[in-house]
């Protein structure tokens, strides 16, 4: 670290103003280093111990995979537990986990999983099909109050049992005919089911520990797990420490001795910790928005598309939003490109559809564009020529600088193109949630992140009566298409049905899509095996610290090898292909 001191001082002074308002981490280059002509954000010395340290972003509400649903909790659960399937760290495609093979019946309704022989919990007790049976039933039991129990609903009778309409858990389509065979019966073919089996809610939990310790079963000293790492220390709001699990079936390929996760919720602090080398990985979501454009010049900044969309939704139970022409007019009057380009500095992609990109084979309907002329015509048809007589309404959003700026832009566009009176209504998050659920709003900011790699994860929320609908909109044709898609075995035909459903929802203009989410992470050059993924899920089983990363940098463009040796593809710092397409693995850097 021997940069020019005078330059450093100048830059430091120049960044003081920004630091004062945003937290002190304006990325000045005085302390960045370069290797092989590439620049890194902050220190680049590997940690002394063979341990990965990362920002967790928030304190996990509880460690109980069957019950929780948040991203933070999922991240912790996947470190500690492994499901029937696991996820490929680059593509997230299902790979064998606790089950080493499975069969799917010709009608797509029965899955038979074969567990690896000799599986054990971290305390040495044998782990078998009965454990999965008990864990899944527990997740479905009403008294567990599982947040994500809905993901199990494709299973026969799961929904009825979870809703309390059925008392007998043996009626749920799950069976363990012997120790190593687990059978799942679905009520309809579910093409994405193998993605689900690696999801948090589907992880096995230790019955014996839960029955012994009750509420505190997952505290260090009590917890028994079956994944690559064990929980050693958990101090609230301070740290979680994990150590390698010697009894994990694939322990030989786990190369880290441990992992430390810091529940830091201040975004500027997250970046500070990364820059100073206190953490080696700053996952997506923990960089303050204004810094994103500045990060592009660094090679440890990894960005790519994320399965999420940012949109506004209408409350169609209120006038004049019950009129589809009004909704379409407001939709067509928004210049999404300008928002993405000027406001978000190109850090996210303008988007005019409900489902995000990234479902191979899914051709969604054409995106809603920017057509102010058509918008004005529609509004006139609806009885508000030139915006005359249009009632005053509000955009409701929760407190955040980004939300405010976008709402102001939308307000200005609606005023300019349609001359309608809009006011901004900023409330704290909990209040916004309540107002949205109770349909006490006109237009509100929302977002949706996919749970699994399938358009259904998005389209399902607009079903009639779905708890996440929150618009009052309902269309029997839409519901029927989703039902038909759920019964369809042929993948291409199923996607066509889903695309038709999405077209109905887009034509009804219930949502105003604005942008497509992206992930923005920082990964130190010596960390191998962390890739950009569309769901922002990162299996850490085979991640490792590469102490000779500088030597490997020279060959970083060489063909990839399997995880566990030098990672080239998607390894931090892999150059983007010259044609600008993302390299295999999906990551591109700007």
């Amino acid at each position, binding site marked *: 670290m021997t940069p020019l001191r005078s330059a450093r001082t100048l830059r*430091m002074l120049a960044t003081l103003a920004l630091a004062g308002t945003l937290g002190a*981490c304006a990325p000045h280059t005085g302390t960045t280093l370069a290797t092989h002509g590439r620049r890194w954000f902050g220190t680049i010395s590997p940690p002394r111990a063979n341990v990965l340290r990362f920002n967790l972003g928030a304190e996990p509400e509880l460690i109980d995979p069957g019950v929780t649903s948040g991203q933070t909790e999922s991240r912790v659960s996947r470190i500690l537990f492994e499901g029937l399937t696991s996820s490929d760290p680059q593509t997230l495609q299902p790979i064998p986990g606790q089950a080493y093979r499975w069969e799917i019946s010709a009608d797509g309704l029965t899955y038979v999983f074969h567990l690896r022989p000799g599986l054990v919990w971290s305390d040495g007790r044998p782990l078998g099909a009965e454990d999965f049976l008990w864990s899944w039933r527990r997740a479905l039991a009403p008294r567990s*109050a599982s947040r994500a129990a809905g993901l199990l609903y494709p299973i026969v009778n799961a929904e009825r049992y*979870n809703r309390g309409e059925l008392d007998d858990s043996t009626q749920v389509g799950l069976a363990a005919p012997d120790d190593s065979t687990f059978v799942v019966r679905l009520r309809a073919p579910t093409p994405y089911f193998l993605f689900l089996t690696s999801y948090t809610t589907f992880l096995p939990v230790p019955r014996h520990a839960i029955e012994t310790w009750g509420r505190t079963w997952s505290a260090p000293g009590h917890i028994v797990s079956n994944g690559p790492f064990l929980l050693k220390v958990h101090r609230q709001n*301070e740290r979680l420490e994990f150590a390698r699990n010697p009894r994990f079936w694939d322990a030989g390929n786990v190369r880290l001795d441990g992992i430390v996760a810091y529940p830091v919720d201040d975004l500027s602090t997250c970046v500070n*910790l990364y820059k100073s080398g206190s953490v080696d990985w700053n996952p997506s979501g923990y960089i303050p928005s204004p810094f994103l454009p500045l990060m592009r010049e660094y090679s440890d900044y990894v960005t790519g598309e994320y399965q999420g969309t940012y949109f506004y939704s209408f409350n169609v139970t209120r006038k004049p939003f019950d009129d589809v022409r009004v909704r379409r007019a407001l939709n067509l009057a928004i210049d999404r490109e300008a928002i993405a380009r000027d406001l978000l500095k190109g850090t996210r992609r303008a988007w005019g559809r409900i489902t995000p990109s990234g479902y191979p084979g899914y051709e969604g309907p054409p995106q809603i564009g920017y057509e102010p002329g058509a918008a004005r015509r529609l509004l006139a048809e609806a009885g508000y020529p030139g915006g005359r007589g249009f009632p005053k309404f509000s955009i409701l959003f929760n407190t955040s600088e980004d939300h405010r700026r976008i709402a102001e832009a939308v307000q200005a566009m609606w005023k300019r193109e349609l001359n309608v009176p809009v006011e901004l209504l900023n409330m704290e998050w909990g209040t916004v949630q309540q107002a949205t*659920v109770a349909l006490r709003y006109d237009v509100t900011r929302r977002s949706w992140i996919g749970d699994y790699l399938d358009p259904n994860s998005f389209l399902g929320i607009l079903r009639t009566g779905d708890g996440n609908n929150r618009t009052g909109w309902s269309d029997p044709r839409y519901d029927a298409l989703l039902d038909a898609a759920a019964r369809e075995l042929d993948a291409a035909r199923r996607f066509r049905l889903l695309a038709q459903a999405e077209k109905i929802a887009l034509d009804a203009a219930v949502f105003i899509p604005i942008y497509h989410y992206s992930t923005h992470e920082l990964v130190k050059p010596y960390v191998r095996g962390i890739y950009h993924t569309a769901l922002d899920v990162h299996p850490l089983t085979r991640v490792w610290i590469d102490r000779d990363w500088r030597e490997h940098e020279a060959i970083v463009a060489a063909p990839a090898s399997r995880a566990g040796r030098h990672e080239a593809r998607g390894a931090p710092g892999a150059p983007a292909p010259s044609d600008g397409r993302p390299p295999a693995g999906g990551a591109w850097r700007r």
Partner: protein
Amino acid sequence: MTTYVLRRILLFVPTLWVIATLSFFIVRLAPGGPFQSEKEIPAAARAQLMRTYGLDRPLPEQYVRFLANAARGDFGVSYRYPQRQVREIVSAGFRVSAELGGWALLLAVLAGVPLGVLAAVKRNRLADHAVMGLALAGVSVPNFVLAPLLVLIFALTLYWLPPALWNGPASRVLPVIALSLMYVAFIARLARAGMLEVLGQDFVRTARAKGLAEPAVIARHALPLGVLPVVSFLGPAAARVVMGSIVIEQVFAIPGLGRQLVGAAFNRDYTLVLGIVLFYAALLLVLNLLVDLAYAKLDPRVELS
């Protein structure tokens, strides 16, 4: 003296009851509830949670149950972190905040009192102006500006100290300095004012007339009375500082009580909010009592009644 202390302690009960009652109803006035999320929780799960925590009972019944449990010091589990008792969370957070605050206050006294005394003794001279200028800066610069500045200089430019976390002695340095600077300034100003008042009094003149050396006059005669304003400031200051500074804990990712309180309020974690508020109230009452007792000890003119 004993009677006085007992009477004060008896007064704690109605005071805490009023605070508990107000807090109980105010947290419930906030829109939303503890079990809300961007993604809908299934209705069955929500109903189960409401039952588990007795939130489906009528409000008066909830209030009575809350008071009965609170009287035993039992606030139940946190709604947000159901694997933890409120008691555990409060005591863990308080230990951290108290340590941070304790160091900050110690630094503030050790730096502030000598600076104030120096300014008083060198009244209207360069040292006085320098100290008072510093004190003015210390009072004026808010810690949400000071903390990031310290991080920028010492953690991200010089790489001497970690920028955050609660992770060994090095990680304590910046937050302690950031938290204490304002108190250093306050204490310096109070000590100066107190000393100036005392230095002009007859008994100091008498001590000098008796031929005592100036350092002895200041240290033995003037200082005990001169720091009285500092002592009375220390009580409320200690209460404030050990409860944790929200800004400092946020910027430095310190697992203290201040951060917990903010999080609990946003999460509508009723039990945790009430636990922290009542703990804070009790602490404030005790600290105020201790200050009054210390005051009586230091100043023979004060009578406890």
